[in-house]
């Protein structure tokens, strides 16, 4: 690969190789302030390469590569290079991560304890994490929460926060000083804009936290809260995990511990302010 970028996000080191300079330059700009992989040896390698050799020059479009590939993934236009890199990095984590039980969840921390939020795409995981970070919580991640099977602690994965569609304006308003990437209009997931986590969240990305609250938010409904029993939480979390089966007995032990020890609640909310009220209220009852 002609152009290379390396970065460490939480415990995971990445190496992104690209046929073009532009996506690498964008990643360098957005991930300025992040450390390099430990010993400079990445855990995961991602490749962004021209869909066809001539497409390097003519209407350039990016195909993703790495240890794991999605054969049906459509090439993305070069202008969406950061999105392509993010998708490829997520895929390597989702498929290749074996040290931690990986939950498709956002996480924020306060006083050593963490709130984990998981749900379907559009539930508001990333938006809520960004809004809580704007209110002083430490952002641990908007996509993956990493549970250490040995300790039960959650480790941070504070990659760029991926904001979609209406969430972009909501978060920009809450974080007028925030650092944002370029607006990527008309991607396969709609409009996307990345938010750079605040410097404190980046500096403390190596600090794990004790999971204290599991939330299952749903956006677009009247306000409601419903406590969830351990077996329902177990089913929901195994659905939200990309590597539960691959971890075998370690995954089972980590998951049962989580559902036994951590309070869980489903919350429905009509707008961002209502969601924040739910989270702060539930947090105060712990």
């Amino acid at each position, binding site marked *: 690969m002609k152009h290379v970028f390396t970065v460490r996000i939480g415990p995971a080191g990445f190496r992104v190789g690209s046929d073009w300079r532009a996506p690498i330059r964008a990643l360098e700009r957005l991930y300025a302030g992040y450390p390099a992989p430990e010993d400079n040896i990445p855990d995961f390698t991602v490749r962004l390469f021209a869909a066809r050799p001539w497409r390097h020059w003519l209407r350039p479009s990016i195909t993703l590569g790495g240890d794991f590939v999605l054969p049906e993934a459509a090439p993305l236009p070069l202008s969406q290079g950061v999105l392509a890199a993010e998708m490829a990095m997520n895929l390597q984590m989702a498929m290749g991560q074996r040290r931690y039980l990986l939950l498709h969840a956002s996480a924020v921390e306060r006083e050593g304890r963490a709130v984990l939020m998981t749900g379907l795409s559009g539930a508001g995981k990333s938006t809520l994490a960004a809004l809580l970070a704007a209110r002083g919580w430490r952002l641990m991640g908007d996509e993956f929460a990493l549970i250490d099977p040995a300790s039960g602690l959650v480790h941070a994965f504070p990659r760029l926060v991926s904001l979609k569609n209406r969430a972009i304006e909501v978060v920009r308003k809450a974080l007028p000083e925030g650092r944002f990437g370029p607006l990527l209009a008309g991607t396969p997931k709609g409009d996307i804009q990345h938010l750079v986590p605040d410097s404190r969240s980046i500096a403390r990305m190596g600090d794990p936290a004790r999971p204290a609250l599991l939330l299952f938010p749903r956006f677009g409904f009247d306000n409601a809260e419903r406590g969830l*029993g*351990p*077996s329902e939480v*177990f089913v929901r979390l195994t659905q939200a995990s990309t590597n539960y089966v691959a971890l*075998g*007995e370690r995954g*089972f*032990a980590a998951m*049962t511990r989580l559902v036994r020890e951590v309070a869980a609640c489903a919350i429905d909310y009509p707008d961002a302010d209502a969601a924040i009220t739910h989270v702060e209220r539930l947090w105060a009852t712990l």
Partner: protein
Amino acid sequence: MAERLYRAASAETLLIEPLDEFTLIFHRASGLTHLVAAPAPEIIAALDRDQISAATLLERLGTRYELGDASDELLQARLDELVAIGLVAAL
């Protein structure tokens, strides 16, 4: 025809975690997780490694639990399910 005998998977191959009205069973041999409700965990515990018939199993369960409306047919249905998911062997 000889009566069918049943035996549960050995205890070392099972991690059993009662949660609420459901119990989780991780089957080490297959790596599969099963979420089961009563009377599945009770049947596995009562069978243990013995090779016994469904009738003997029903008697044994009767000495341990208040069985209520339990019948041969209901027990057979639950046993068939446990055989199907590989936690009980039909011999």
